[in-house]
């Protein structure tokens, strides 16, 4: 890093957590440097302290959390010791920040242009007209189509990607020396993520800004990083140049994290049964909202004429971005939503047209695993009860159902003695295992899994996927696996269907779809996977 000037340096920074937290320090003796014109990626799983570090630099820590010792040197002064008024000068002008969820980071009641203009009116004495030109120039800079319209738009009128662009425009308004990006692409679709990453890269190179990029995704690291810092439990375990860390990781934790990144290549195809357990034919679902006597009503076709087959014992992946209708399709299959048209034949009976009461009684044949391990378990029931609920509803005696539930606990890799605990006492991965056990308690023929690993850290993700593959083999389960992550789909699916705007644009064997995509949208999706090169290379390394 010679020849470059150091913009920010952390010197043995420690941040103390309040008593009663799971550890005493959020950060312990963290030292790092960021030079001008470089992107430093801070990688770690949830709870590693990476976001806490960004907040410590900005001095935006929650009240009970305090900086214990160490220094944050920025432009020759220690930010830890800076008075509050001086910090206000630094925030925005010296160091700017962008966040994970642009919808909540933007004020919903003010226009985009207004919010960017605010940066100038707070920190500079520019005239209104001057500010206006600058705002439009910035919006053009972040390549928002039609800056004039965008400046007058409210946050909800823009797409997720455009909102994040607006956030970036706001952050870069005052030409900050350092940009802190806290998981800026995590909430975005892959194709949008690829665009935003490219944008950040371009702007950074043009403006020679230093960027601290916080992420959990090694694909993103491979895509964008100059240097990498790996964090675990509030401690930096490894730092170095991107290629060193990615290709020659030294620390065991880094190696473990990289190994857990799902390779893009599908595993060798398994033999598929000839008969289909689930046949979906021409299923459609249209949402109609609002409107009085037909006026002003909005019609959104969520699923359009989808036809798919699931051979017995196979796993069908349904891949798509947000709004593609994949979750609606999943909910139609388990009849949480009634499809408008089409048939869903499971073992000879048409699930789509069955009366509700019959669906309720027959529901044990088809079960669902949900995305959010925190929202999908009733917080007021014990784990064993949650798992036993299904059988109890269908007439098993309570004591017997609880005993069965404890057996299921060991099947999904949980300690049966933890069955008397409440959901909040489990980690995310463990909760997802409880959700899986709950679905399996009814001994279903088909399991519909809606983004079951999306909310989990990579290493936990890998474990849950492995568990799912094992259970599939042991119990002869047929699985419909919904995901937005092609890498995850490549891991577990025999068949893949790609959805866009409610329709299936391409489907076939996983190896074929990923190896030789036919539809341009599938190709675009595959190209957008962050660190595509790395994902493929890393695959060959691991084998």
């Amino acid at each position, binding site marked *: 890093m010679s020849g470059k000037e150091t913009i920010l340096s952390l010197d043995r920074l420690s941040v103390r957590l309040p008593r009663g937290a799971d550890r005493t320090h959020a950060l312990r003796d963290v030292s790092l440097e960021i030079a001008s014109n470089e992107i430093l990626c801070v990688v770690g799983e949830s709870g590693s302290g990476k976001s806490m570090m960004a907040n410590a630099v900005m001095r935006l820590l929650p009240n009970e959390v305090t900086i214990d010792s160490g220094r944050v040197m920025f432009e020759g002064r220690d930010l830890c010791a800076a008075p509050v008024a001086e910090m206000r000068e630094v925030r925005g002008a010296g160091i700017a920040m962008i966040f994970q969820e642009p919808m909540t980071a933007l004020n919903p009641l003010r226009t985009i242009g207004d919010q960017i203009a605010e940066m100038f009116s707070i920190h500079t004495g520019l005239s209104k007209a001057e500010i206006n030109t600058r705002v439009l120039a910035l919006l053009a800079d972040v390549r928002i189509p039609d800056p004039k319209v965008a400046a007058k738009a409210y946050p909800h009128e823009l797409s997720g990607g455009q909102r994040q662009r607006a956030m970036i425009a706001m952050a870069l308004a005052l030409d900050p020396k350092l940009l802190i990006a806290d998981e800026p692409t995590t909430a975005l679709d892959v194709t949008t993520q690829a665009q935003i990453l490219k944008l950040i890269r371009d702007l950074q190179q043009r403006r020679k800004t230093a960027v601290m990029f916080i992420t959990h995704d090694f694909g993103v690291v491979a895509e964008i990083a100059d240097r990498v810092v790996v964090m675990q439990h509030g401690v930096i375990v490894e730092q170095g140049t991107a290629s060193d860390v990615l290709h020659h990781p030294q620390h065991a934790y880094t190696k473990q994290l990289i190994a857990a990144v799902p390779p893009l290549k599908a595993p060798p195809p398994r033999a598929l049964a000839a008969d289909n357990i689930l046949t979906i034919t021409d299923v459609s679902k249209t949402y109609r909202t609002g409107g009085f006597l037909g006026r002003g009503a909005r019609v959104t076709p969520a699923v359009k004429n989808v036809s798919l087959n699931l051979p017995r014992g196979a796993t069908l992946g349904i891949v798509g971005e947000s709004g593609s209708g994949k979750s609606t399709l999943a*909910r139609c299959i*388990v009849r*949480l939503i009634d499809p408008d048209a089409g048939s869903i034949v499971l073992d000879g009976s048409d699930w789509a047209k069955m009366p509700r009461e019959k669906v*309720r*009684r027959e*529901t*044990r044949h088809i*079960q*669902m695993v*949900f*995305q*959010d391990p925190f*929202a*999908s*378990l*009733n*917080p*007021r029931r014990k784990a064993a009860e949650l798992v036993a*609920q*299904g059988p109890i*509803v*269908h007439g098993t005696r309570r004591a017997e159902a609880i005993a069965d539930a404890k057996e299921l606990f060991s099947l999904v890799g949980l300690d049966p003695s933890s069955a008397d605990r409440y959901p909040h006492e489990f980690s995310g991965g463990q909760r997802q295992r409880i*959700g899986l056990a*709950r*679905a399996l308690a*009814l001994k279903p023929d088909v399991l519909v899994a809606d983004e079951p690993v999306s909310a989990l850290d990579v290493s936990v993700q890998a474990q849950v996927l492995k568990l799912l593959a094992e259970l599939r083999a042991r119990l002869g389960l047929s699985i419909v696996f919904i995901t937005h992550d092609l890498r995850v789909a490549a891991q577990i699916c025999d068949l893949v269907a790609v959805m866009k705007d409610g329709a299936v644009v391409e489907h076939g064997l996983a190896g074929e779809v990923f190896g030789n995509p036919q539809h341009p949208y599938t190709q675009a999706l595959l190209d957008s996977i962050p660190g595509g090169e790395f994902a493929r290379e890393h695959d060959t390394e691991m084998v």
Partner: protein
Amino acid sequence: MDAVKRYFRSPAAVAGLILLLIVIAMAVSAGWFYPRDPLALAGRPLVWPFSNPRFLLGTDNSGRDIAAQIFYGARISLLIGGVATAIAILIGILVGAFAGYYGGWVDNVLMRITEAFQTLPNFVLLLVLVAVFGSTLTTVTIAVGVVSWPAPARLTRAEFLSLRNREFVQAGRTLGMKNIQLIFGEILPNALPPVIVYASVVMAVAILLESALAFLRLSDPNVASWGNLIGLGRDVLRVQWYVSAIPGIAILVTVLAVSLVGQGLNDALNPRLKGR
């Protein structure tokens, strides 16, 4: 258990609980301290407090012991407060739960009814009910409950609206649970904490409503209640003000105790909202 610990960490909540326990103790021990009928004549009328050791708090205009009426009145206030609150919360939860869970026309019908109740000032409605059905203790209690349910119903409905589409409810449905099981087994326990907290407000208002009725001499005259005593004292308010003031203080203390307990419960059950 955490909630209990958090509750006892707040001095105001503990003070409220102690006050409430004192009122309850008065209600329980009334028959023991004052074995005679509190409405029986006990001595000369209008004896000032602390002037005769037989009547510590003096006597009212017809010569009845005020202290005895305060002790027995605690029973009535707590009874009306408790039972009317139970009625209001029960109706509120049922209406709110069905409206919030089913949505659509069920929600429309139930909410229009709720609004009809809400647009009438509830004291006026209470007067109408008492005028029509008479003013025995039972009808007054039920009437107070019946005019107090709209607010808990709206609160329950709001909770149900936000909870009914949570994944754990969908999970319950995919397990094959009936709607009734989902409403009362899955959603209600999660919707309950704010409603329980609100119950303290309903209880305080119920006690005040009964006193207001009694002040207008529309409550049951055959029981010793604080409101009745205030109503009696009205005639001698300018000279023997203590006849109204003493039960007034009793009502103040009880309502304060109930709301402090409610605030304490709120902080204990929703720790994240505290300090905002």
